[in-house]
């Protein structure tokens, strides 16, 4: 049964990606152009308008943005996955509801991997050569995948029950954006505040990407373990809610 659902998740993910690229004239090129525009906006604001950072700020910013975008796009898309968008399917067939946010997460993960590959190439062209520490990247990506998946399950499980949560979510995401050090270095924040910021799993992840890619050093494993634990707890919670309301969601949507 589970194998069947995995097959379905994979096929539907590919179908959605295919449909998305069939929509515009330049198709899947958008997967690359859109992130470039997105990053360009931040570069103009923080790099040129505020003249922040100076030397090495661009790679610093890009590492953070690429990972942040994977995180935020997945969660924003998943928030609406058990909703009108899939109501047609949910009212005609029974499917375990985790399938819907999971498809969104995998779709965004594939887009991330494409952009991330570009980031790696750009970094190498800019003189940041791979070190042994780059071997930690798959682990880091794995941890972030678990975190993205778990929060997507949680968010998607709440929105159909409390539609107002979507409004709250937009603000939570901006708060998280500013607390995660996308455009500043959290390791430079001192004292208790710095420590609290470092307990934020997203901040830990962004910092780890930079440690590996820019400094060429191994990430702090104990902090990554914290992020993974948070992910597992949230995943458990989200799956509990999704299962509890499995056959209630379609009633709310019909």
């Amino acid at each position, binding site marked *: 049964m589970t194998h*069947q659902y995995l097959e379905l998740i994979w*096929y*539907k993910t590919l179908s959605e990606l295919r449909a998305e690229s069939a929509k515009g004239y330049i198709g899947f090129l958008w997967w690359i152009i859109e992130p470039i525009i997105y990053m360009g906006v931040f570069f103009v604001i923080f790099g040129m308008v505020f003249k922040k950072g100076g030397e090495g700020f661009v790679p610093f910013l890009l590492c953070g943005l690429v990972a942040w975008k994977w995180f935020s796009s997945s969660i924003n898309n998943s928030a609406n996955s058990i909703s009108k968008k899939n109501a047609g399917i949910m009212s*005609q*067939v*029974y*499917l375990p509801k985790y399938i819907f946010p999971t498809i969104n997460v995998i779709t965004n993960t594939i887009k991330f991997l494409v952009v991330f590959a570009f980031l790696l190439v750009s970094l190498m062209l800019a003189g940041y050569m791979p070190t042994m520490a780059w071997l930690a990247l798959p682990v880091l990506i794995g941890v972030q995948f678990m975190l993205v998946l778990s929060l997507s399950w949680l968010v998607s499980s709440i929105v159909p029950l409390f539609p107002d949560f979507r409004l709250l979510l937009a603000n939570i995401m901006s708060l998280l954006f500013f607390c995660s050090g996308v455009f500043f270095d959290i390791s430079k924040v001192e004292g208790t505040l710095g420590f609290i910021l470092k307990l934020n799993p997203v901040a830990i992840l962004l910092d780890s990407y930079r440690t590996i890619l820019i400094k060429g050093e191994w990430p702090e494993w104990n902090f990554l373990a914290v992020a993974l634990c948070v992910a597992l707890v949230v995943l458990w919670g989200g799956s509990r809610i999704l299962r509890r309301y499995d*056959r209630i969601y*379609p*009633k709310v949507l019909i």
Partner: protein
Amino acid sequence: MTEHIMGQHGDLVLRAEDVAVSYRKNAGLFNPKKFWALKDVSFDLFHGETLGVIGGNGAGKSTLLRLLAGIIAPDKGRITHDALNISLLGLSVGFISHLTGRNNAVLSGMLMGMRREEIEGKIDDIIEFAEIGEFIDEPVRSYSSGMRARLGFSVAIQADPDILLIDETLGVGDARFAKKSSRAMRQKIKSNKTIVLVSHSEKMIRRMCDRVVWIDKGVTRREGDTNSIMDEYMESMQ
């Protein structure tokens, strides 16, 4: 394997006991109103039979099928069964208009519980039955609504659950294809399959169903032999 779990012809396969289903109306913290689509429904379903469900508009027939398919859970009462899978004959489930007909056929079939290989193996039959031809590799958005419906039906009819739920009131394409599809449906119904059929056609019910459940405003009014219940039902409609 199915036979072994489902048992012999005439065995009880599903029992609905005092089932009630409510929907939230005007959902909101300060205005929680419930609308009871089903209030008190009970009936039995036996292996290999075709059970008709009749009742006026808003009697709760569609809700009942969703309930039997396991899509929604009852608020009260219970449904017990020993079938592996029960599913609704859904039309064009999950179609994405920017994808090709072939792609949609596979996706739709998988959503209905078929395996990818299974549908890909039957794709030629699907194309032929749907009379889609070359268009199968064109995006569905270029289809007429009739073509879309034909493809949807042709995929759905391939599914082979232990208990098949059919809502015959859903229209399928033009008049000519409607004949063809209802012939295909009748073939399914006549096979030794366990079927629950919702229909507004008296003729269809009388011809196809072994027994009938009559639901009136969310409550089971009668259950039993097709002809006697249909006579009574038609009389009440006068």
